[in-house]
């Protein structure tokens, strides 16, 4: 582009197009998701590595009711998030806030069930460094991986509440709800891998 074009051309011609036609906020969230997925992938691969290399790996889980309910709640919260984002995009502000807060409530319920499960396991003697069913590596990995996921859920719940309230107050737009929704779907996506690897493969038969 010559100097004449620079001085005479419109400002829009000089502006750089966003990468993949994705706005900056959304792109930043995608980059975070990609980086975070590498973190979770590292944890799960390390878990597989240790499980494979440890003879007599414990299988302490006797039932699937709790984890099935938790999975249902988290998957359903993704749907409510979608409804919230769609409501925001259609200009239905009250609907968007309501569905986003329902999503946050579902996330909080998931976290409560998760903590209840932890308390049951701790009550049976499992801690980060002690496992009553065999190798302590099981407890370390179980609490680390599910704890990392629980941390993401907790942060997600807080983010959803903050974004919903600020959207209601007019400080945030529908785009901000959409970006937060991306994060929430990612948390849901990670759980799809945590359940089979950490819970279902360790069911007592």
């Amino acid at each position, binding site marked *: 582009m010559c100097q004449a074009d620079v001085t005479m051309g419109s400002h829009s011609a000089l502006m750089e197009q966003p990468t993949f036609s994705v706005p900056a906020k959304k792109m930043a969230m995608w980059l975070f998701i990609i980086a975070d997925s590498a973190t979770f*992938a590292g944890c799960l691969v390390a878990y597989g590595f240790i499980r494979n290399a440890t003879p007599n790996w414990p299988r302490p889980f006797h039932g699937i009711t709790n984890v099935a309910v938790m999975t249902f709640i988290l998957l359903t919260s993704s*749907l409510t998030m979608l409804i919230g984002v769609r409501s925001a995009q259609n200009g239905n502000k009250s609907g968007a806030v309501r569905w986003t807060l329902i999503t946050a409530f579902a996330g909080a319920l998931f976290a409560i069930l998760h903590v209840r499960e932890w308390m049951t396991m701790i009550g049976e003697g499992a801690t980060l460094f002690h496992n009553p069913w065999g190798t302590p590596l099981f407890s370390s990995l179980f609490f680390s991986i599910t704890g990392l996921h629980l941390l993401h859920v907790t942060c997600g719940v807080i983010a959803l509440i903050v974004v919903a309230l600020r959207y209601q107050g007019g400080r945030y737009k529908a785009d901000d709800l959409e970006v937060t929704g991306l994060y929430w779907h990612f948390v849901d996506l990670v759980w799809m891998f945590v359940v089979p690897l950490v819970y279902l*493969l360790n069911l007592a038969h």
Partner: protein
Amino acid sequence: MTSPEAKTNGMGKDLIVYVCILALAGIQFFIAYQGISASQMFVRMLIVACIEAALALLFFMHLWENRGLKWFVLIFTVAVILGMQYGWTDSYRLIDGVPWAH
């Protein structure tokens, strides 16, 4: 930020995807009670989890509507996960090989 096409789409597609993901999650739980070896169970559950994740990525996270970003995410993620697979051989060595064989 969202394409007009995405805005006009109703909830029908999202509901179908949600039901599919729920059904796939159910299949994972069903596999857990099959009398098969742990390695077979692992492979089957991982395949189902990958399908679930792909559905969530493409439709819940709207990657389907952005071709460039879709390939970027796919190539980057697959490259990272493939890179992590180098550890598996060492994991088997811990059981069968030296110097730390059980």
